[in-house]
């Protein structure tokens, strides 16, 4: 059973923010509610007020133009993103990633905003969005701010959001030509199991399709938050795509992570697997970029 609470249903972001500032610690935003309800049914969390933003119009959209890139409303469901023509065409790796989230039932209800704000390091979208240099737009009583996603996550289930702030939009810059991406969700039990390693790679090649002009790596399930593998990126940047280079890169990425040994594998195993997945991910991204 879930302990009792008052459900507040603001009709605008502004109203929601004022409710949040009014009740402070006693209140929390709820969107689809999937993750939050799990915490509440375990009685790990007993809020006095839940502020449901599901009734707020105009937070469910996918827009794209060359100049501003991609803009996704916080209440857009995983399913909508997975099936969006725009996203399939412009950011295929995103469509692939969101297709891998939970089950169809979860994707029909879960929202991109809720997913990011829950800040569970083992969820699918963050690594890919990190590798795509995503930003999030946040609205608070004192106005808006835009935060790079890599600065957004703080710790397990913790973000830089203030108690009275709401994430309203996710922004993804357009990708340069000859860019390819790949997302790997490596689980050690069933396909739908919580992954042991998540790796997203986005590769941009030079005009001759030889040099890795730019490489961005997003990782999940390997630290208290989803992270960028900066050292590995720096190492790969400007190098030619070669087996020995990938080998070296896989060693570097293994050192960049700080996994916890758990039901999905030991610390050592996860460190080794992220190396394997890096080689595979970069290769896949490289091949897509070359097309």
């Amino acid at each position: 059973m879930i302990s009792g609470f008052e459900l507040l249903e603001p009709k605008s972001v502004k109203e929601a923010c004022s409710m949040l500032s009014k009740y402070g610690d006693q209140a929390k935003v709820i969107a689809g509610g999937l993750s939050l309800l799990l915490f509440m049914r375990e009685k790990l969390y007993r809020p006095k007020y839940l502020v449901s933003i599901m009734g707020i119009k105009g937070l469910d959209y996918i827009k794209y133009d060359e100049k501003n890139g991609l803009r996704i409303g916080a209440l857009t469901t995983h399913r909508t993103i997975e099936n969006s023509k725009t996203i399939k065409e412009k950011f295929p790796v995103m469509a692939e990633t969101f297709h891998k989230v939970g089950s169809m039932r979860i994707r029909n209800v879960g929202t991109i905003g809720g997913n990011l704000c829950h800040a569970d390091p083992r969820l699918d979208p963050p690594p890919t969005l990190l590798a795509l240099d995503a930003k999030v737009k946040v609205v608070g009583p004192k106005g808006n701010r835009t935060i790079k996603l890599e600065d957004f996550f703080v710790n397990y289930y913790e973000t830089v959001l203030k108690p009275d702030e709401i994430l309203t939009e996710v922004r993804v810059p357009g990708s340069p030509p000859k860019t390819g991406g790949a997302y790997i969700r490596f689980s050690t039990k069933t396909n739908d199991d919580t992954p042991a390693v998540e790796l997203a790679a986005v590769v941009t090649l030079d005009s001759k399709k030889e040099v890795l002009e730019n490489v961005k790596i997003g990782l999940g399930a390997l630290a208290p938050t989803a992270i960028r593998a900066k050292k590995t990126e720096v190492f790969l940047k400007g190098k030619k795509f070669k087996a020995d280079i990938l080998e070296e890169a896989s060693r570097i990425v293994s050192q960049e992570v700080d996994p916890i040994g758990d039901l999905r594998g030991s610390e050592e195993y996860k460190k080794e697997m992220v190396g394997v997945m890096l080689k595979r991910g970069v290769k896949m991204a490289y091949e897509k970029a070359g097309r």
Partner: protein
Amino acid sequence: MQEFSVIGKRLPKVEGYDKVTGMATYVADIKLPHMLYGKVLRSPIPHGKILHVDTEKAKKVPGVKAVLTGEDTPKIKWGAFIDDMHVLAFDNVRFVGDEVAAVAAVDESAAEEAIDLIKVDYEELPTLFDVFEAMKSDAPKIHEKGNVALHQKFVKGDFEGGMKEAAYVFEEDFTTPIVWHAYLETMGAIATYSLSGKLSIWLSTQTLFMARQRIARALGMRIADIRLIQPSVGGGFGGKSCDEPTAMICGLLAKKTGRPVRLINTREEEFQASRPRVAANIHLKMGFRKDGTIAFKDARTVNDNGAYSAKAPATTGVTLTRIDTLYRFKNIRGEAILVYTNKVPTGAFRGFGNPPMHFAVEQMMDMAAKEIGLDPTEIRLRNATQVGDVSIHGWRVNSCALSDSIRKAAELMNWKEERAHKKAHQGLGMGCFIHVSGKRHFGNYDGSSAVVKVNEDGKLTIFSGEGEIGQGAFTVLSQIAAEELGVPAKDVEINVGDTDTSTYCHGAYASRLTYIAGNAVKAAVADAKRQLFKMASEMLEAIPEDLVSKDAKIFVKGDPSKALTVSEVARACLYREGGFPVIGRGTWDPPSELQTKDTRDGNTSGAYSFGTQMCKVEVDPETGKVKVLSFIAAHDSGKVINPMLAEGQIEGALQQGIGYALCEEMVFEDGKVMNPNFADYKILSADDMPEKIKIHFVETCVEPTGPFGAKGLGEPGLVATSPAIANAICDAVGVRIKGLPMTPEKILKAIKEKNKAAR
């Protein structure tokens, strides 16, 4: 071959309409007027002495009608084989999840609130989680009698001679974990208590009458004062045999409040405190002669009983000896030890104790084949049990198509070709199995009985207490009845299990229903048929011996023109001076024997099923992850009554068997289950299963004692699955994994060690 009109047909399940429309009623769907909701408080610690239980606050919660502690129970020790459990603990708690107190309230939230307010003071006691630690003489005692619940030992045949004869000897340790049934419906009960003194319980169980006996024992009541009713049951797989106290607690709450009480386990409670598969630690040594025949076998298994003894004392004996009739073992030595630990009590799960020893022996058969230079199929053919054999334990094999099943599986898998031309990191593996059709154990009776009523409308109603838990018993029994009387299956109905109206039956375990209950129902219908024929013979002026029944008509052999319908005859029996309703009774006890205690001799079952499974896997050499590409199951289940349902049984068993092989395991930390939910304890989804699965029934050898030649088939589907996959993994990447589950990490580690050794 005999011509059948109903047997062997792919008929839909008789209760199917209710299940596809959501109308089927499971215990949690029943709501009685004035009903209360029950909840149980469980021990948070693995071992401790209860110093004090404070229920004052809980009793004050509005809506709470009863709060029970161990002090409110009869304090009678009970258990399936060893009496070491209490309905609610009052002295010590022995595992995380042990039942300590219970509440009944007007709604779930009040019940939960009250549970949270019960304060229990414990004195923590030393804990034991490892069987080998617990076996030590100086180990702290979990029960007064000590930590060894059972110890069996035997030497049979010319063991020493066998050792001398052996040209090749192999010795290995194998381990298998505690795994969970994962039936989709959690256990639960609804109990009502009438002041007349009768306790009625709707129970999610697979053994109705045995459950009633246990409840009566544990509550100190007369069996006659308890009525059990079996609603639709959402799967059992051995777990719903009333080896844990849910029903008793629910009954006590109803007794105490005088109101109906519904008690349904949460998924987490199920993981913590139901009765999962026993974990085995097997030390196996086998010797082979030059020609590949088995010279001797020396097996020792140490099984984890958990904190109390449910079915584990029986499963442990099965782990040690059931496989001894798969091959022609002549010289064997065996030892089985069952040890208490501060973990969840273990019990019966599809296959009983059989799968762990198959995991060990069937791998060693492959090790031997490789060493001797024989094909895995060949070494098994050279040792395979044959029809007419009497095994080292005195098991009489009336029917056996093991050799045929090996050949058939190889043909379907295209074994030799595929093995010769497999791609890198792909491998093929096989495993053979034996299983029983019933197991004589309780009161030297393994029989079943049934009553059948032929209504004046010509329809049959069967009364049997064996019960349907999804496995298809009702449909199969209907088909047997229909065939016997010569009516269409749709004219047969079976009443739901109810101890007030059903005949006494042991229930669903040991794959016994088709074989044993099938014979009982067949006999009951034959009895009714005699009554009908007697009447028909008068009406047709013929002698009963000349009559036949077909398509719901009774007529003189060869003269269907003058035919009477079954309903006409049934009505004629009734509507006459001194008329009588047509009621047939049948009972059947299989030709089996109780086993001797230590040597475990005696023909434990009336019939034995055999089979071969083969699979093709691909192993990712960089991650150790296994993908099962295809699976072949060629089973000898005698004559198959309903192929569609039979295939379903094996396909479902494979889902459990592949999970057992690759990913299922209850993980414990400080005795606490660390993965007590479906997010962390993963069972296979549709896309985890191989797309290519072929089930084949080898009907070359029907069972002479079975109904229309049938024998049991429910459990065997997973018995040989884990060794088949282990052997395929070895064929693919050359490593032997001797511990289940065969996780990617274990496999990768083994691959690395192999490569290191190669360098």
